[in-house]
């Protein structure tokens, strides 16, 4: 468990002492922990982003009444029973206003299916008073590892030999969101794989990712991520290792209000900016890959910028029916590339996309209607036509430059 903020003097409470107090206390109705005042939750901590599991105890209603008897300052004791057995509390944290307490426990205490009872005790004069939950809390969603496995059949799958045939796939996903409980950064492990019944299947893959992320700035959320990913096909004909470091953020947006939130233009949110650096080491390559990637090492810097939505000529209002634009941009810097003549050069590429969205709710196209015919008019989604213009390099085609205008109709839910 990670250290809680504002953890106060009550860490590591002695269960035995609490039991004694609970046994000698007088039940006080006003110390009742009603439904909803005790919750089991998982949340990230900052700056480490390590998730912690805890019991949230809402003390506000008790504190309101404690003002009368001045009990609150002595509400200092918690007893927690898991499946009716007392368990040691790892740490107690309190919010700034001390209206909410967080109890954390050693690993393995709060697991799915267990039932938790919380008792609190407070002293008035020399007498202990206590209260408890009316019904125990059942723990759900506490599993530290997410995973899924699924089988599928794929007709006419392309093989590395150039042939096609029907194959079976086994898709596996596994993720441990936090490997280390006490760490300055969240360390995670992910594995995904598509195992095919044919080893030559072009879509077979195995990816293992070990990463760490944290948000070092106290004043603004700016997560920084380091990741190492090993990718391979299932017969290990192609194996590569990709190490990357990156950050993502948005900008404080209030200061642009006069400029970008007025009757002519409304951009309510900051653009999102993503910066990363990647180093790829091709450990094993088959002939086809060797032909495409002559250099076994590749380094690149990558940046992405997304700014949406921006509504135009809205007047005072703002709705999904406004004329809108969206911007997206990508940039790559790839040093020490080699051209066909074997000459080395540094490559700087970019791609800009701008979309203009026209609301066309009046079209009422049947494809965007839902439900029965009688209610089709009322349930029809709003529609808009998207004109998208792209200019720059396309990564998936080896950075070939494109200039493309596309038009589409889309539903707005």
């Amino acid at each position, binding site marked *: 468990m990670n250290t809680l903020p504002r953890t106060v003097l009550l860490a590591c409470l002695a269960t035995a002492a609490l039991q004694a107090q609970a046994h000698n206390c007088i039940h006080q109705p006003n110390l009742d922990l009603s439904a909803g005042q005790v919750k089991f939750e998982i949340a990230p901590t*900052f700056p480490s982003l390590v998730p912690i599991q805890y019991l949230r105890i809402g003390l506000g209603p008790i*504190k309101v009444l404690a003002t009368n008897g001045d009990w609150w300052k002595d509400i200092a004791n918690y007893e927690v029973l898991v499946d009716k057995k007392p368990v040691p509390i790892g740490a107690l944290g309190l919010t700034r*206003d001390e209206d909410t307490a967080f109890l954390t426990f050693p690993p393995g205490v709060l697991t799915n299916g267990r039932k938790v009872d919380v008792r609190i005790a407070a002293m008035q004069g020399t007498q202990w008073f206590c209260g408890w939950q009316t019904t125990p809390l059942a723990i759900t969603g506490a599993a530290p590892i997410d995973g899924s496995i699924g089988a599928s059949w794929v007709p006419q799958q392309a093989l590395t030999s150039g042939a096609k045939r029907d194959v079976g796939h086994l898709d596996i996903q596994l993720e441990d969101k936090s490997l280390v409980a006490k760490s300055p950064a969240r360390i995670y492990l992910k594995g995904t794989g598509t195992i095919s019944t044919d080893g030559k299947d072009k879509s077979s893959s195995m990816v293992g990712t070990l990463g760490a992320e944290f948000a070092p700035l106290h004043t603004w959320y700016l997560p920084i991520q380091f990741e190492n990913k090993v990718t391979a096909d299932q017969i290990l004909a192609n194996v590569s290792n990709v190490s990357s470091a990156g950050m993502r953020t948005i900008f404080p947006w209030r200061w642009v209000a006069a400029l970008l939130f007025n009757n002519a233009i409304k951009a309510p*949110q900051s653009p999102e900016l993503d910066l990363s650096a990647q180093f790829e080491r091709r450990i094993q390559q088959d002939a086809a890959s060797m032909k495409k990637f002559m250099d076994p090492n590749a380094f690149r810097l990558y940046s992405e910028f997304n700014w949406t939505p921006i509504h135009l000529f809205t007047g005072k209002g703002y709705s999904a029916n406004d004329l809108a634009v969206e911007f997206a941009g990508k940039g790559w810097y790839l040093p020490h590339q080699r051209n066909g003549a074997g000459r080395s050069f540094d490559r700087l590429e970019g791609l800009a996309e701008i979309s203009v969205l026209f609301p066309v709710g009046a079209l009422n196209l049947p494809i965007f209607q839902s439900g029965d015919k009688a209610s089709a008019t009322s349930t029809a989604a709003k529609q808009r036509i998207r004109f998208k213009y792209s200019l720059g390099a396309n990564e998936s085609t080896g950075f070939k430059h494109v200039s493309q205008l596309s038009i589409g109709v889309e539903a707005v839910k």
Partner: protein
Amino acid sequence: MAHNPLSSWFANLLEIHDHMQTLNLLTDPDLKKFAAQSPATLLPSDLLKRNLSQFCFTQFGQHVPDTAFSVTTFSDLNDVLSPTLHLITRAVLMGAAIEHDQKYSAMTQTALGKQLSAAVFDTAAVRGKLFDTLDGLLPTSFFPTDGTASQAFDQLLTTANRTIDQAIDAIYA
């Protein structure tokens, strides 16, 4: 005690409101209207949600689970983080009831919520005192006190067959 949890609930909402105006310019400047806005609308991306989570953590020492964002309004979100507005308000009313008549001290808060408000707050004096208490704890956008507000509050509590839980809902309607 330095503060009352009811005023603290609104103090937290006020700070969230202020920070949301830095994140999304669609945030309504009026606190009560903001409280009814949807987190899904104003925080459409994970970056925005985490930004608010970090703000709550660093400002209030508050943990924000990801599930907190799947509620309908920011008032509900604040209810996830703090003891709910309904429960705290009921506790304030219970304090007033106990002060008026000690017999309510033996009752749980849940049981008090089922009592008829007109029976518990059975004099104009106790209702007036409760009005003043709430006036001191609630922002005016949630609890207007001008004009005939005190008479309206009196009527709210004395409406026939209205329980205290229902009266609390009526206060914030």
